[in-house]
């Protein structure tokens, strides 16, 4: 491979409510695009072969493994990362629940768990034990032994039900507010 480098591809993607364009080598993974090109380092790399889930982000509201996706596959879609959840310093209920229920220790896997839980609770505000396990079963944690994570997601579900709002609904409202003229950055 000398000067015959494959052409870069133009990619337009909406990330955390903001429309972005970039020119990338097609082999750039979505995870690396987010972390390196956009500086959104809350999404982590734990295995780079689609098993551990530390890289989980939402693609049009669906939890996906960004390490085994190409950035170009996200073109024209909406990507949501952990950075979108907190609203001007105030934690999202999912995040607060993990804090309240000690659902994290080293915290490396936590953004992935939170994003996966966000998809679940948006679709299913009162999930059965089986539905909870099914989503959490796709994410690996080495520190907590999972018990506290299950409690955290249950707690978040209850808080969101009390508020009568879904986790992504909350996000959308915040993103809209921040994008409005006179709103925050």
């Amino acid at each position: 491979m000398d000067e015959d480098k494959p052409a870069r591809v133009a990619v337009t993607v909406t990330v955390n409510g903001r429309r972005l364009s970039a020119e990338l080598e097609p082999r750039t993974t979505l995870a690396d695009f987010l972390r390196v090109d956009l500086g959104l380092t809350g999404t982590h790399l734990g295995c780079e072969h689609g098993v551990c889930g530390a890289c989980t982000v939402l693609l049009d509201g669906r939890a996906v493994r960004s390490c085994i996706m190409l950035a170009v596959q996200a073109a024209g879609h909406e990507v949501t990362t952990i950075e979108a959840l907190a609203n001007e310093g105030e934690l999202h209920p999912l995040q607060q629940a993990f804090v309240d229920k000690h659902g994290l220790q080293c915290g490396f896997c936590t953004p992935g768990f939170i994003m996966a839980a966000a998809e679940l609770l948006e679709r299913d505000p009162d999930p059965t034990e089986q539905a909870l396990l099914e989503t959490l079963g796709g994410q690996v944690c080495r520190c907590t032994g999972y018990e506290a994570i299950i409690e955290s997601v249950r707690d978040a579900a209850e808080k969101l039900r009390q508020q009568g709002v879904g986790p992504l609904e909350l996000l959308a409202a915040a993103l809209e507010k921040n994008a409005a003229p006179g709103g925050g950055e």
Partner: protein
Amino acid sequence: MKPPAFEYAAPTSVAEAVALLDERGFDAKVLAGGQSLMALLNMRLARPELLVDIARVPGLDSIEISDGCLGVGAMVRQRSLEFFPGLADSHPLLLAGLRHVAHPQNRNQGTVCGSLAHADPAAELPALAVAAGAEFVIEGPDGKRSESAEDFFITYLTTTLEPAELLVEARFPLLRGASGWSVQEVTRRHGDFALAGAVVTMRIADARVADPRVVAFGVGAVPLRCTAAEQALAGAEPGPAAWKEAGALVAEAVEDPLDDVHASAAQRRSVAGVMASRAMEEAAARA
């Protein structure tokens, strides 16, 4: 673990996709969901010169019931099929089987047809397709052709797809009313590939087993349709004796099972028989 460099194309029609594949042959690979391919790329175990991304081809993401079949297009995500309205009635076997496939996070991105074309014999979808009597619609430079799932799988990770061909649709005959079904598998962990598994469908007519279909997976290079077991079951009186005998025939039919750290060859053979018996029992109970 970063992919090697490759060219990228995002055709907007099947014809365009096929033309690209035809031009580059073995140097090109189709990218649908990427759940199998991307890991290989990250590990540099796959080195295609050209990736043909079919996600931009319109019309490949439809799920339709027509002619007594559930037609699943090439870009239908596994999760979309899982959530297809009424799937629990039209094809509960597919629904149950899909839930064994990896994890929701993979199924959100991975495609049904992608898993079929990848043809891992320990995967659930190829076995489900064979058990369901699925037909595959394939498009190539010479036009469309149709192939049964059973004929489609040749060996480990290999199908009858020519380099220039694209699997555009998988058509699953709807499960006949009052059909019983079951998927049984042994995995190291929930969501892993099966060490050995079986898919069984059957009806009970006049207190006898009718139209049995028995497929074992994870035990050879392709999903194994166990015709000897089916013959033993057809017309048999439902019960432990029948399941045991047919299960033994399944075990016998297993040729050259994989021997690895997870299970020995002898174990896979034996467990395939056990899974088949358990699946028969469950299918009969549902029938």
